[in-house]
């Protein structure tokens, strides 16, 4: 009899302290449950505990029940070994590292089957067919396939043993939006065909809202709210859930300011007493700070002393008009016919790209991986040479004052051996400015002045990105290039950084080139947008026009793929 999976009283403890605190979870057969949370919320550790894959030094207690089998998790990973990969399967995030590079895909898919089935051509064909892959893939190695195809192979492998429950740990996060949609559709179809339970672990609220029957929200190792489908967000009771919902940038309109949650996600072991969210909550009182609330409720549950009630008025979001492109101003830089090919056999990374950026204007470039958007930025800033075309600047200033760049990963963008102050002072000197401005620069990006003495390792990801932005604006460049500046940040922190960028642009009058794969994010920042695909600009125009009436087929496809918006 199939009764689904129940996880009760899960506690995960690491070397520094608690990682997951008293977690309960139930997935019915054929049901999709989404576990939503930001980094450090403990959602991945929950998946690892359920499959006995916890890293060294991390242990779990609690019970896992699958039908009539009850497993005491404190018995260690061996207790789960006869379920893992058989009745419980795990699909991981990165299809580039989760497959073995030296084995053919066919072998990897059937590795868990009995020896006589393992070599059966029919079996392999059937498995590939289920995930919509052609038969030839069986003889190919993972590196010969695209990311989306690899993830399908990984899915086929995790389905091979016909599991009752599939745990997907961010299974579509590493994929492009269009591929992501196909993958989610495939997952849904297979799940229905097999009446399989699906536990979907994701940081993407849109994916959860669109696909899940039940959503659980985790914060700092605790379950803070759970409920049915998108109700969890539309009628959020926990202030964190509401904050998460509001700080997720909308695609339909531009907001004057994104409602951000102040501060950043704490480590679960740092929270000693009281509600985990209290330090960042604007509803918190002394009670919240001294006593931890329990999860209460029947249909929907919430762990909060002062939950948001239905009658309470939802704060109205201030919708702004998209900023009209400033056609009157002179172009700051004009790119004409830029082309670049990395190796003679590779396709063009940039194919006759022309674009212009006007002084003080915010321009967005939207495209998926491999579209050439990053190559374009690197050519513009001089980190990359190009085969043909011209880049002409209308200003005659030193390189450092022309353009600066902010990268995606803030951790590797700062020199770990230098203090924040030294990093900023160096950038100021490069722009012939005085290093006494370090303090005002820190204030400008919303950091206290004592951060000057810290090293990057002592800062959170959002704070590091603020420093990276401060360094980029230090020489007062005329153009700021941001290459996916918020895609490695948590949603609540992403909103803070986007607000910061908008206010900097307003105050300093710097032009912005914002490169992203995320349409909703670019809408909040840019007034004009270029859509790139396969090294070409396929569409361009004012933000509102492109969004309202996309002309090119690819742009339309991109819009259709955005989940849950």
């Amino acid at each position, binding site marked *: 009899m199939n009764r689904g999976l129940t996880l009760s009283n899960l506690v995960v403890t690491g070397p520094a302290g608690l990682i997951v605190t008293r977690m309960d979870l139930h997935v019915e057969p054929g049901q999709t449950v989404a576990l939503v949370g930001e980094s450090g919320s403990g959602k991945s550790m929950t998946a690892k505990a359920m499959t006995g894959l916890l890293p060294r030094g991390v242990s779990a207690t609690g019970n896992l029940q699958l039908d009539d089998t009850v497993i005491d998790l404190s018995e260690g990973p061996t207790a789960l070994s006869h379920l893992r990969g058989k009745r419980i399967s795990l699909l991981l995030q990165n299809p580039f590292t989760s497959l073995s590079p030296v084995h053919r895909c066919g072998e990897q898919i059937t590795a868990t089957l009995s020896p006589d089935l393992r070599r059966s051509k029919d079996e392999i064909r059937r498995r590939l067919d289920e995930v919509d892959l052609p038969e030839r893939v069986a003889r190919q190695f993972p590196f010969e396939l695209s990311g989306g195809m690899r993830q399908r192979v990984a899915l086929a492998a995790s389905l091979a043993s016909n599991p009752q429950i599939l745990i997907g740990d961010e299974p579509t996060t590493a994929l492009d939006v269009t591929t992501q949609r196909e993958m989610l559709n495939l997952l849904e179809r297979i799940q229905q065909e097999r009446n399989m339970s699906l536990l979907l672990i994701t940081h993407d609220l849109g994916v959860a809202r669109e696909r899940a029957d039940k959503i659980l929200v985790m914060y700092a190792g605790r379950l803070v709210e759970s409920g049915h489908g998108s109700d969890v967000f539309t009628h959020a009771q926990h202030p964190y859930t509401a904050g998460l919902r509001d700080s997720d940038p909308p695609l339909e309109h531009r907001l004057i300011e994104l409602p951000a949650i102040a501060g950043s996600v704490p480590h679960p072991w740092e929270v000693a007493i009281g509600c985990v969210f209290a330090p960042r909550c604007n509803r918190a009182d002394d009670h919240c700070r001294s006593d931890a609330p329990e999860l209460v409720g029947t249909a929907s549950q919430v762990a909060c002393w002062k939950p948001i009630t239905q009658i309470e008025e939802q704060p109205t979001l201030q919708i702004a008009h998209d900023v009209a492109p400033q056609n009157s101003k002179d172009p700051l830089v004009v790119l004409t016919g830029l082309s670049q090919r990395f190796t003679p056999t590779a396709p063009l990374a940039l194919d006759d790209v022309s674009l212009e950026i006007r002084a003080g204007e915010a321009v967005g470039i939207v495209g998926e991986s491999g579209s050439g958007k990053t190559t374009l930025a690197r050519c513009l800033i001089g980190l990359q040479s190009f085969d043909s075309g011209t880049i002409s600047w209308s200003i005659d200033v030193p390189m450092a004052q022309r353009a600066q760049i902010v990268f995606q990963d803030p951790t590797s*963008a700062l020199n770990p051996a230098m203090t924040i102050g030294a990093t900023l002072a160096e950038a100021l000197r490069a722009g012939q400015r005085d290093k006494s401005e370090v303090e005002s620069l820190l204030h400008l990006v919303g950091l206290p002045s004592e951060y000057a003495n810290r090293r990057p390792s002592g800062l959170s990801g959002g704070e590091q990105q603020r420093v990276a932005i401060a360094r980029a604006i230090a020489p007062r460049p005329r153009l700021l290039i941001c290459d996916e500046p918020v895609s490695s940040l948590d949603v609540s922190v992403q909103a803070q950084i986007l607000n910061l960028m908008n206010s900097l642009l307003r105050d300093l009058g710097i032009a912005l080139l914002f490169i992203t794969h995320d349409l909703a994010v670019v809408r909040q920042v840019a007034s004009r947008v270029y859509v790139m695909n396969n090294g070409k600009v396929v569409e361009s125009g004012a933000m509102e026009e492109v969004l309202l009436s996309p002309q090119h087929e690819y742009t339309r496809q991109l819009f259709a793929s955005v989940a849950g918006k």
Partner: protein
Amino acid sequence: MTTRRSLIPFVTGIPLSIIAIFVLASRWIVPNATQQDIMTGVTAPGTAGHLFGTDQLGRDIGQLAIAGASSAVVGPIVIALGSMMIGILLGTFAGYMGGWLDLLLSKYADLLLALPTTLVALVVTGLIDGGYWVTVLVLIMLFSPTDIRMIRGSVIAQTGRPYIESAKVLGLSRRRIMFRHILPNVLPVAFSTMLLNVAFALVSMSALSFLGLGVGPGVPDWGRQLSDSRDLIDRNWGSVVLPAMLIIITAAAINLLGDWLQDRFEQRAVQR
């Protein structure tokens, strides 16, 4: 596992600090180490006043070993430091500048690497009739190619990182990027490699003095002591065991400490 590894600094620190005291203060601890006493001759360990016995010249084995610490340890430290300085300078240039300079320096390193260390040291010091410091110099040259390669690799790994690209975009000079930005991030690895090199050099130097090269006659040194006492092993086993043990313990302790440091730095790099 974690707890056992965390003991390494203590386990290695105790013998290493005792040896450091021997190196720095042997002239005060054992001022008469080389004093000969023909009348005593060879005695077994445990003879009155001689814990480890004496050699055929009546010198106290224990005192001799304490006095021999400095020539056994100072040379290897100089070798490791010298070869790392060459490694940092050439490795950084090769790694950051790339192109023909990298090719040239890498080929030079490959060439040196192809030479058998002990054999070349034997031939060169034998040919130019050199003493201790010539041996040290030869070993610096022979140790440097691995350091050049190691530093070059680490520099290349850093060069691709966004913080270096940001420095380039700020228009900083190449010298500043190399020595102010890249080098501090390479130094931790360089330091742990240097420690490992001290251990290797200690064994190499001891082997060379055992073969009669390196320190001059009469100068106390572990390797020399070992070779001098070979014939006495049946009359005084202490004369062989003590210097041999000292070489092994020192080399192993330094090696362990270097390994431990390397792991620590790697962990820190991951956490970043």
